[in-house]
Every structure is written in structure tokens, then in C-alpha cells.
């Protein structure tokens, strides 16, 4: 366990204050469901009416939040404060000599770039290189500074959307801890010396016939591929190794074995009427999540009139995809292959197919179902639907499932004719296959034996990422010359002699190709901040050493394009014109078709599948996450603080266990368990997660980096040490784990009970009847679209109650938002977009623990049902901009007031911090600055240069002691007003988009003028499924939620008896 022991001791004390999350759960498995049979719940504390939860509900500001600050924990008289005091003293002294009217200076450009108009943003298309998905991005810059990254609408895959990691990636560029100069053994050197030493070593290695190893992540750039090929020609002993912690190699290999084609066609998920996700989180943490979310949710749109698709999830973990499924089947992960084989046998029999080996499955589906106590209705529906929708359904296996399972799934899809859903037009393109574990093994032995003379880490961190069984770190110490190209410190750079700083993605040139039919272009958005070089340029410069200049790789790239890609596009424009427009658009379309379509299923592949059987031990799933990826985003505080969509935990990873398994082990949330797989062992804090399959342990990878700067170092527990070099199933599934209760506890911090809405103790339990979450089934909706409106589930009958306030007429435009809960998957992209747009500070784990997180937009997650098999509802909650806003009535200084266009405004310079408004807010969406978080978090990290330059200049950076909340992106509304006045037209609601709306990959959020009857937002607001949260209190909120429809055959849980 790598989190500090001290921290554990501290948490011992803290734990006394914290109620045991699941005491009730362990003792009274059954009574639980009785108590809240009909209700939604957010945590075990709420489900079992734990007194601490009702206390939390009662006290908006937790005792923790109101505790006087502990002086010893403050950054006290740190350097910054000392300097500030000194400076203030000097200023006071100097004030006498100065003109008190002095207003400073205005320094204009000496030569203003033509495209810059002060105060107006410029947008540049580029490509995100945060992961190998290579999504198109559109970067907003102000006066040359990038301030926001959004998706590029012209990009055919992500279509203007971007995930949380991509959005928050802007902080990586401004990270004050980036390397600024080349280093040799931690002392600064200059580039010329570094280049000379490395080139000499490369030449010597070639002459001696010793290996030169380049270790890279997946190569997605055709020009970089060419560069490596040429580098290999210049230094023939070079070998290029590539690895990814989260790869879909198993799926691709299985495709190769099943159909004899190395490249996979693209799945057209929008054409699927039925989707069966097997241990797959395609809606959140897996590859291509943006496209899949769009394709999945566009068939769950109540406006479009399209038939709803149906999602089945068969999983051991509790993923976003599973929680969004219409039917969720809990099944331990290592039994999934058998389940698929049972389905294969079932359908082979149904369709009277021959040629299947008799021993394909040892079980029939019925036996299997009883053996694993699967939900009978769900399985029956699944079989019926797969049968009914042959050729219109898809069974989709998760990235981490073993190759044999993917082959079984291919077989099942083939039998059912579902391969039709694979595109004939577009297929994925791999520049270079990832290295097999054996290849990496041979690299390590070459390093150990002295055969490898030079190892170059090409923006990779194998010391941290690779299984400890490789012994990579020890081997690296034996290599005569080790070079790491990196932006920030990593475990690998710590062990390397030469650490060469590289450009951030926003300073780079590049091209990317992930699929047939188009290229995605990358161009620098800002000139390099430091004495860094683009990583491709470094390699290029070593290939043929000459004097370096910044345009080296740019020239190489455009020359390659002029020679290879430009002629293929068949455009009539000159290359220069073509090149400029390619960079402008960020995407280049080419006319190319996949070579040959998928042939028939290769029957031989069947031999290698169906062998996996469930063990009796624990299954450990090593998960990908929305936060730190494989660890490369560990130093990004925004991502560390983004609550996990399901558990709502922040700043940590943990071992998630089902209620049953936790009881078996005798552990509770925050206890420690020791996990050993073979001779690999690690201890983790426990989090009891409803909905997990029994004997399944879910752990996120990418945590506990030991060298990731001031923000990322030592956060969570390192689960990479559990990865095996040659795993039996797959590198992320282990079904031979031995688990025992460990000693000590560790405090995990979850936001799930923060800011609970239903805060009046007199109305205890009524919260479930208040219709905060409303849902129904597609059937019900078809029969009676207004079924939710007529449901009298509100005790206080809001509709007929008179309006307590005088009504105000909103003539002109009025702003409103609609959020379609059918589409929202809970992924968290909107939260991050809001953080970036509105200068939300990071508060750190301590801050979140004290309920002091500052995020304006939160996603409430409500469970429904039993702790064993809950379903979840996600509800983005933000300031509702009520027409009769209760916060405004209680502000003693009129700092929060209403505008004529229906906005609830917040004037920071008036606010004196009474927090009355927050107390009176029914939705609990106001956030108070208990500190200047920029100063307090990690010793003023957020005030370091150049991170202080990242802020959006159109939004005030709030100081200590003021209240803040969602403004409906007022700065964007004002920009539209400015444009409207300049163009002498009316303000057009559809021209304004909020940051969360721009980011939402599911298009769940609509924003606009609600007085415009033709606008999309009005249509959603007037939809029969539209409702406002807590509408009975008649504050007339301006955010409308569209009730969720579940596409199930049965009746949804009966809401209330009355």
C-alpha cells in the first residue's frame, strides 16, 4: 500500500466521526429492501436510514465544513505569503511616493498578429493526443492563450464532443511542473550537448551491433510511423516497441482469428435494436466512448420518434454502461465466456445449425442460469430479443475480456447474422501492431544481458505501467544510455540518465489516422512555452543530425503529405492551399475503401474458445477510469477530483466489493483488504459497491504514481503491480485472487451525500415521493405519453396550488435548459467542461471531505432497488435559475438578483458570505469559497506560473468568502448579445450553447430561449415527459428534465402504493 502510513493513522482518528457506511448492510440484508422498497437511494447510509445521513440532510454545511481551520495544516507563512507580506509592506512604504491615482499601464502589441482582436476568441482545429483515439479538437484561444478544448464538429468520429480527460487536458499544458530544459542526471544541460551524446551513443551502438530500443505508446500517426521506419534505416539495430495498458488487442486478435483480417470494421451501433454489452463499458471508460455514446443515445431520443434500442449488460463490475442498461445481469466475469457459449448452443439448436463440436458448452443456458442465479426474466428476454432481432442486434464484448471470449462473441454474432452491423465502408487502421508481451520480455532480457545499448522512452512510462514481473526498472539500470522524452516527471524519467522535455500536444505538429477515409491533423496552438522540442523532431534530428530548428518536423510532415497523401486526395488545389485548408479544418477526407469485406467465420477459431471456466476464487478486474487513464493524467487535479460516475469517489482508487463479498470477508468500507494473485500482492481500501457481482473485485489502474509532481504523487494505490506478464485470461482479469482482511483503515471520500436536495426533516421519506427522479417504461409512454404528468404522486399537489409569489412577465428572450435523462449516461464530460469554462478551482481530497468541492455542476446518482441488483439514475444538477429564486429573497446585500432574461445572477463583489442563499436553495447548487482554493491547494500550486494564465478571461476568478454557482454560461450569453447588437438583429437563443451542452457526447443538454416557441429547448420543455425537480415548491425552475424511459417488457417498479 503506497499511500503514506501517516495518512492512515490520521484517518484512524477521523474515522470516529464517520458512520460506518454499511453497518446496516452487513447485519440486515433483507430488511433493507423492505424499508425502501419503493424509493431511490444514493448510499447505504440513506437506504438504511442511518442517522448520520439524515443529519447530513439537515445540515447543509457539515460540521466538517464549519470547523475552524487547523492552523497547523495551513500553508502558513510559505514563500508566497512571505513575499506577499514583504510586497505589501514595500507597497505601503512606497505609496507615499506614488501617484495614488495611478491606474497602471496598457501595453499594446508591438506588432499585432493580424488575426487577433483583443477580447475576441480565435479557434484552431487540432487533434488530441491524450489517448490513441485521436479525437479532433477545436481549441479556443484568447490573445494567443489556449483557454478551452472542445471537440472538432467536423471530425467524423467524435463530432464536436470530447471526453473529460480531453477537456481537462488543457491543464497539462499549463502545468508548472513541466520540464523546461534538458536534464542529465537531474542537472540542466543544453540541447546541443544532449543531442551529441545521444547521437554518438546511437552510432556506437549501431557499429557494435547492439540494440537501440524505442519504447512508445501506440503509434497513430502515419508520418511518425514513416519517421520510425527511416530511423530504423539510419540505425539498423533499432527496434520499436509499443504498448498500451488499455488496449483492444484481444478484440482485434480475435477478429483476425475469426475472419482472417487484421483490421476490424467499424461497428454501427446506431443500427442495433438490441445491444448486449458483456463486461463492456462502451459508454464511459472504453475506447471510442464518444462515438458509441452518440450512436447509442440517438436511439433513445423521445423527440426523434425513433424506436428505442434495448441495452442488456452482463457484467461483474458495476459500470456506467451497466447502470444505464434496460436489463442488467450480474455475472462474475470469468463465467461470461461460458454464458456466451450457452447462447451459441441455444441458438445453434434453435436454428438447427450443424458442425458445432458436441462439447462446445458443458451447460445448457437453463442450467447456467440456475447455477449463477441469474435474473430469469432478463435472460429470457435476452434470448427472445436476440432471436427476434437477428441481424439487428449486436453482442459487444468488453476490451478487457480474453481473446477466446471475443472469438465466442464473434461466433454468436455470426450465427445470428449480426455481422451486418459492421460497416462495409469504414474499418479501423493500425499503423503498427502493439508489441506482444513476449517482445517486451525479450527487450527486458536484452537490457539485462547488455545487448541493448540505448533505450529511448518515447513519451512512455514503462517503469510504472508494465507488470512488475518484467523487472523493467532493474533492467533499465543496466542499460548504458537511457533517454526519456517526457513533459513531466515520471517513474521512468527518474531512472533515466537523459530527460529531454517535449512539447505538449497544443505545441505540436502531427497527423493521425485511426480509420479508413480520413486523416486528423494536429497543429500548434501556441508557441512552445519552454525550451522543449516536439518528440518527433527529436527523433528526426537524431536520424540525420544537423542544426535544429523549430520547423524541422513541420517541414518533414508537410513534405510527407505533399509526397504521399496529397496526390491520393485527388484535389485540384495547389499543395499549399490544400495544406492550409487541411490544417484549418483539422480533418482531411480521402477516398478509400477497406480491402475486401469480412469473409465467413473461420471454423477453426472455435477450437480456441469456450474453455474458460469460472473459478471459486475472487475475480479481480483491473479497470480503466475517467480520471487518470493509465496514470498519465495523474497530475491533473481536475480529473483527480472528478467524481467517479458510479461510486462518486474522488482522489483515490479502491477495491470495490459487493455487499455479500464484503460480509464474507468481514470488511466494511474503508477497511483494508490484502489481495494476492500468484506472488503478486497489494492492499487496498474497500468500497462496498451495490450491484457488483459477488466475488468480483473492481480496482482502477493508474493510481499511486510515485513520481507525478505535487498533485499526482501518492494518490491512491498502485494496482499495476497485480498485472501479470503472461496472464491466463487477460491482463486485466484474474480469477485466481486470494483475498483476506488486512489491518488498518483508509478513508475514502465520496461526494454522493454532499448537497442532498431533500433537506426538510418534516418531510422525511417524502423525498422518494417527490418525484425528483421520474421514470417509466417505453410501453407506458406509448400507451399514454402523459402518464407521468397525471400520476398523482405528489402529496402536496402542486398543480392546483396558487402561486405564492407575484408573477413576473418575461418579455423578450428568457433562458432555459432541458436535460434529457434518457440520454444522460453520467459520464462526467459536462462537469469537466464546466470546470474549465468557469475557472473552477481544485480543492483537494481534504476539501472534498469537508463538503467544500467547488464544482458548479454535479451529477446526482440515485440507486433504485436492492443493494444486490440496483438500477441507477443519473441526474445532472446545476443552478435551476428559478423564476422565484428562494436564494434571492434571503440575501441581505442583494448580491444575488434576477435579470430580465430570467437569469439568477451572482454578483461576487457584493457578496459578503452570509451563505443564507445556499441555505435557502432547494437544489443545493450553490458553492461557497471557504478559502482561496488556488492559494490553499498544494501550496498555491494553482497560482504558479503559467497555470495562472489558464483562466477564462471572461469569467471572474472568485476570491475567498464569496458564494458562487452556475451562471448558465453568462459570458456566452453576453457574447451573443454583443454579436446581435453588432449585427442589428435579435438575440438568437440557438446561438448560445453552454459549456456542458457543448461537451455532452449524448446531446442530452439543450439550451436556448424558452420564449421562442420553435426552439429545441422549448420543445423539450413542453414534452409530456418534461418535469422540473421539486416543482411542488413552485419556485418555477428553468431547467426541465425529461423523465427516463426504460425499454423493458415488464412493468417498472410500482412507484407508490397510494
Amino acid at each position: 500500500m503506497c499511500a503514506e502510513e501517516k495518512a492512515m493513522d490520521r484517518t484512524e482518528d477521523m474515522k470516529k466521526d464517520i458512520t460506518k457506511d454499511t453497518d446496516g448492510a452487513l447485519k440486515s440484508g433483507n430488511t433493507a429492501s423492505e424499508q425502501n422498497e419503493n424509493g431511490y437511494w444514493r448510499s447505504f447510509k440513506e437506504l438504511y436510514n442511518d442517522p448520520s445521513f439524515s443529519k447530513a440532510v439537515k445540515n447543509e454545511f457539515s460540521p466538517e465544513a464549519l470547523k475552524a481551520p487547523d492552523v497547523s495544516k495551513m500553508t502558513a507563512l510559505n514563500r508566497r505569503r512571505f513575499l506577499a507580506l514583504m510586497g505589501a509592506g514595500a507597497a505601503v512604504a512606497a505609496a507615499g511616493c506614488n501617484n495614488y491615482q495611478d491606474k497602471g499601464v496598457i501595453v499594446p502589441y508591438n506588432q499585432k498578429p493580424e488575426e487577433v482582436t483583443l477580447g475576441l476568441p480565435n479557434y484552431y482545429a487540432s487533434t488530441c493526443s491524450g489517448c490513441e483515439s485521436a479525437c479532433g479538437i477545436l481549441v479556443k484561444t484568447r490573445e494567443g492563450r489556449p483557454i478551452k478544448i472542445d471537440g472538432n464538429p467536423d471530425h467524423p468520429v467524435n463530432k464536436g464532443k470530447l471526453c473529460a480527460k480531453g477537456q481537462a487536458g488543457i491543464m497539462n499544458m499549463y502545468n508548472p511542473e513541466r520540464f523546461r530544459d534538458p536534464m542529465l542526471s537531474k542537472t540542466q544541460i543544453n540541447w546541443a550537448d544532449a543531442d551529441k551524446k545521444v547521437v554518438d551513443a546511437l552510432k556506437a551502438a549501431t557499429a557494435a551491433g547492439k540494440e537501440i530500443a524505442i519504447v512508445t505508446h501506440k503509434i497513430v500517426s502515419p508520418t511518425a510511423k514513416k519517421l520510425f521506419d527511416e530511423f530504423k534505416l539510419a540505425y539498423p539495430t533499432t527496434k520499436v516497441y509499443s504498448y498500451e495498458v488499455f488496449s483492444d488487442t484481444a478484440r482485434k486478435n480475435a477478429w483476425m482469428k475469426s475472419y482472417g483480417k487484421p483490421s476490424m470494421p467499424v461497428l454501427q451501433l446506431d443500427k442495433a435494436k438490441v445491444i448486449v454489452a458483456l463486461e463492456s463499458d462502451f459508454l464511459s471508460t472504453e475506447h471510442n466512448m464518444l462515438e458509441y455514446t452518440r450512436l447509442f443515445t440517438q436511439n433513445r431520443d423521445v423527440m426523434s420518434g425513433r424506436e428505442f434500442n434495448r441495452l442488456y449488460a452482463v457484467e461483474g463490475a458495476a459500470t456506467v454502461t451497466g447502470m444505464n442498461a434496460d436489463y442488467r445481469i450480474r455475472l462474475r466475469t470469468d463465467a461470461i465466456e461460458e454464458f456466451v457459449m450457452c447462447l451459441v448452443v441455444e441458438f445453434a439448436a434453435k436454428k438447427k445449425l450443424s458442425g458445432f463440436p458436441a462439447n462446445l458448452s458443458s451447460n445448457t443456458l437453463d442450467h447456467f442460469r440456475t447455477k449463477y442465479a441469474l435474473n430469469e426474466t432478463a435472460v429470457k428476454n435476452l434470448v427472445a430479443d436476440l432471436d427476434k432481432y437477428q441481424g439487428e442486434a449486436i453482442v459487444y464484448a468488453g476490451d478487457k475480456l480474453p481473446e477466446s471470449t471475443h472469438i465466442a462473441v464473434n461466433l454468436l454474432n455470426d450465427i445470428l447474422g449480426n455481422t451486418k452491423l459492421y460497416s462495409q465502408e469504414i474499418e479501423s487502421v493500425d499503423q503498427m501492431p502493439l508489441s506482444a508481451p513476449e517482445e517486451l520480455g525479450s527487450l527486458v532480457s536484452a537490457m539485462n544481458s547488455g545487448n541493448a545499448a540505448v533505450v529511448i522512452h518515447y513519451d512512455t512510462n514503462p517503469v510504472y505501467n508494465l507488470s512488475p514481473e518484467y523487472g523493467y526498472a532493474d533492467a533499465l539500470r543496466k542499460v548504458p544510455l537511457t533517454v526519456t522524452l517526457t513533459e513531466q516527471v515520471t517513474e521512468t524519467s527518474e531512472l533515466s540518465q537523459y530527460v529531454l522535455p517535449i512539447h505538449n500536444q497544443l505545441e505540436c505538429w502531427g497527423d493521425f489516422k485511426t480509420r479508413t477515409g480520413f486523416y486528423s491533423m494536429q497543429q500548434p496552438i501556441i508557441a512552445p512555452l519552454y525550451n522543449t522540442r516536439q518528440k518527433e523532431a527529436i527523433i528526426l534530428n537524431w536520424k540525420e543530425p544537423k542544426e535544429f530548428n523549430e520547423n524541422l518536423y513541420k517541414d518533414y510532415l508537410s513534405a510527407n503529405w505533399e509526397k504521399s497523401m496529397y496526390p491520393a486526395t485527388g484535389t485540384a488545389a495547389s499543395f499549399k492551399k490544400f495544406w492550409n485548408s487541411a490544417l484549418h479544418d483539422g480533418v482531411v477526407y480521402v477516398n478509400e475503401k477497406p480491402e475486401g469485406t469480412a469473409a465467413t467465420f473461420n471454423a477453426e477459431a472455435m477450437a480456441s474458445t469456450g474453455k474458460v471456466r469460472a473459478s471459486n476464487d475472487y475475480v479481480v478486474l483491473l479497470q480503466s477510469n475517467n480520471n487518470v487513464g493509465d496514470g498519465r493524467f495523474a497530475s491533473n487535479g481536475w480529473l483527480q477530483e472528478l467524481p467517479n460516475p458510479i461510486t462518486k469517489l474522488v482522489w483515490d482508487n479502491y477495491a470495490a466489493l459487493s455487499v455479500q463479498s464484503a460480509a464474507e470477508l468481514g470488511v466494511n468500507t474503508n477497511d483494508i483488504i490484502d489481495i494476492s494473485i500468484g506472488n503478486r500482492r497489494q492492499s487496498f481500501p474497500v468500497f462496498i459497491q451495490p450491484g457488483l457481482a459477488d466475488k468480483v473485485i473492481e480496482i482502477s489502474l493508474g493510481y499511486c504514481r510515485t513520481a507525478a509532481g505535487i498533485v499526482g504523487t501518492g494518490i491512491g494505490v498502485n494496482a499495476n503491480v497485480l498485472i501479470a506478464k503472461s496472464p491466463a485470461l487477460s491482463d486485466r482479469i484474474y480469477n485466481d485472487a486470494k483475498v483476506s482482511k488486512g489491518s488498518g483503515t483508509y478513508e475514502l471520500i465520496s461526494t454522493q451525500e454532499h448537497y442532498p436536495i431533500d433537506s426538510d426533516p418534516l418531510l422525511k421519506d417524502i423525498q422518494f415521493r417527490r418525484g425528483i427522479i421520474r421514470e417509466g417504461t417505453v410501453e407506458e409512454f406509448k400507451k399514454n405519453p402523459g402518464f407521468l404528468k397525471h400520476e398523482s404522486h405528489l402529496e402536496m399537489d402542486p398543480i392546483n396550488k396558487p402561486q405564492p409569489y407575484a408573477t413576473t412577465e418575461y418579455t423578450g428572450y428568457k433562458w432555459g435548459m432541458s436535460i434529457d435523462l434518457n440520454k444522460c449516461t453520467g459520464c462526467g464530460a459536462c462537469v469537466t467542461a464546466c470546470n474549465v469554462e468557469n475557472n473552477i478551482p481544485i480543492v483537494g481530497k481534504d476539501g472534498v471531505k469537508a463538503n467544500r468541492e467547488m464544482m458548479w455542476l454535479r451529477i446526482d446518482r440515485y440507486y433504485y432497488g436492492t443493494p444486490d441488483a440496483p438500477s441507477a439514475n443519473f441526474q445532472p444538477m446545476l443552478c435551476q435559475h428559478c423564476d422565484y429564486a428562494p436564494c434571492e429573497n434571503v440575501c441581505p446585500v442583494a448580491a444575488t438578483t434576477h435579470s430580465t432574461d430570467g437569469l439568477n445572477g451572482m454578483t461576487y463583489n457584493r457578496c459578503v458570505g452570509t451563505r443564507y442563499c445556499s441555505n435557502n436553495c432547494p437544489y443545493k447548487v450553490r458553492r461557497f469559497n471557504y478559502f482561496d482554493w488556488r492559494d490553499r491547494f498544494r501550496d498555491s500550486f494553482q497560482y504558479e506560473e503559467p497555470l495562472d494564465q489558464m483562466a477564462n478571461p471572461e469569467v471572474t476568478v472568485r476570491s475567498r468568502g464569496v458564494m458562487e454557482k452556475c451562471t448558465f454560461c453568462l459570458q456566452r450569453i453576453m457574447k451573443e448579445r454583443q454579436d446581435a447588437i453588432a449585427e442589428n438583429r435579435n438575440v438568437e437563443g440557438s446561438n448560445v450553447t453552454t459549456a456542458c451542452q457543448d461537451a455532452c457526447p449524448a446531446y442530452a443538454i439543450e439550451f436556448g430561449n424558452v420564449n421562442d416557441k420553435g426552439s429545441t429547448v422549448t420543445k423539450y420543455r413542453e414534452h409530456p415527459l418534461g418535469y422540473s425537480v421539486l416543482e411542488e415548491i413552485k419556485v418555477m425552475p428553468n431547467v426541465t428534465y425529461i423523465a427516463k424511459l426504460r425499454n423493458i417488457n415488464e412493468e417498472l417498479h410500482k412507484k407508490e402504493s397510494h
Partner: protein
Amino acid sequence: MKKYLLDYGIKVRLPIILFAAAASFALTYYITYAERTGIGYQPEQPIAFSHKLHAGDMAIDCQYCHIGVEKSRIASVPAVNVCMGCHSLARTDKPEIQKLTQYYNENRPLPWKRVHRVPDFAYFNHSVHVNKGIVCQDCHGEVQAMDTVANDKYKNIGQVNSFTMGACLDCHRTAHEKFPTLPNLNIGPQNCSACHR
């Protein structure tokens, strides 16, 4: 005796002291108000630029230099290359122009002293005002006439209006009386979020 003294203190001395204090405060407050809000502030500029000469005598349009004013919320002080557009040829013999050329050639920042300033928490927008037909002089005064007497040639521009929230609201509330020649003008927004965000 004692009682009398106490009485005198309360009845006579205290009111006099209070009055004197209040009166001197009020007097100082009103006398210095204009100065405190910056009216008449005329800092010495690094280059003796004359608005009277350029905008007045030569009648160069304000937007020839302040190009952002109708596109953006920032009017923008012209980049040095805008000056050099003329002054690479015009009046190159003048010492002030030589100073300017030096800044330009050495690519040194030219630190103009700031005259008008709205606090950072108020997002004043030039373009919405200018595009509604309100001219620069309405807020900034007769800038084109702002040159000064010969013996004070470095002080050629000053602030004429107070840039306080009261001054903003004064116009926003009475837009029609203030600008009778602009019939299409709406009353300016008076809600907080018009300026504060």
C-alpha cells in the same frame, strides 16, 4: 462644579466636536470626489501623443487606431505597428517619433499610462455601446480637443467623466433623455448580470 463640567462637555463640546468631524469629512468627501474617481487624471505618457492633432486637426477617425471598439468589448490601444503605418515616413525628424521608432525597432513594449479604468469585476463592453450609436465622446469627453497649452505639452488627455457604477446607471436609466437623437435606443439593462459575472 463637577456636574456643570460634565453638562458642558455633553451639551456643548461633544456636539461641536461631532459637527466639526462630520463637516470636515463631508467637505473632504465632496471636494476630493472628482479626484478620487479619477476626473482630471492626466498621467505623463511615454510618448507625447496628441489626440487633438490626430483626431481633431487631422480628423482621423477614432476607429482607425482603436480597431476593437465595434467588434469587441475591448476598444484596444493601437499596436505600435499601427502608428508606424504612417510614422515610418511621416515626421521622422521629430524626437517623439524617433522615440516611437526606437520602441518599434527594438521590439520593446510601449507602456502607455492607463487613463480610464473600470474595475475587473465589471465587464464593460465597448462594442454594444458603439454599435448602438453612442459615440466615444459621450463617455470619454471631447478627446479630439484634448491638447494642452504649449508649456504643458506632455499633458494632453485627461479623464472627464467619473467611471463609477452610478455613472453607468445614470445613463442606463435615462437613456432616452440622454440621447434624444438615438430613437431606436433601448433603455440600458440595469440588472447586475449585465456587467457582473
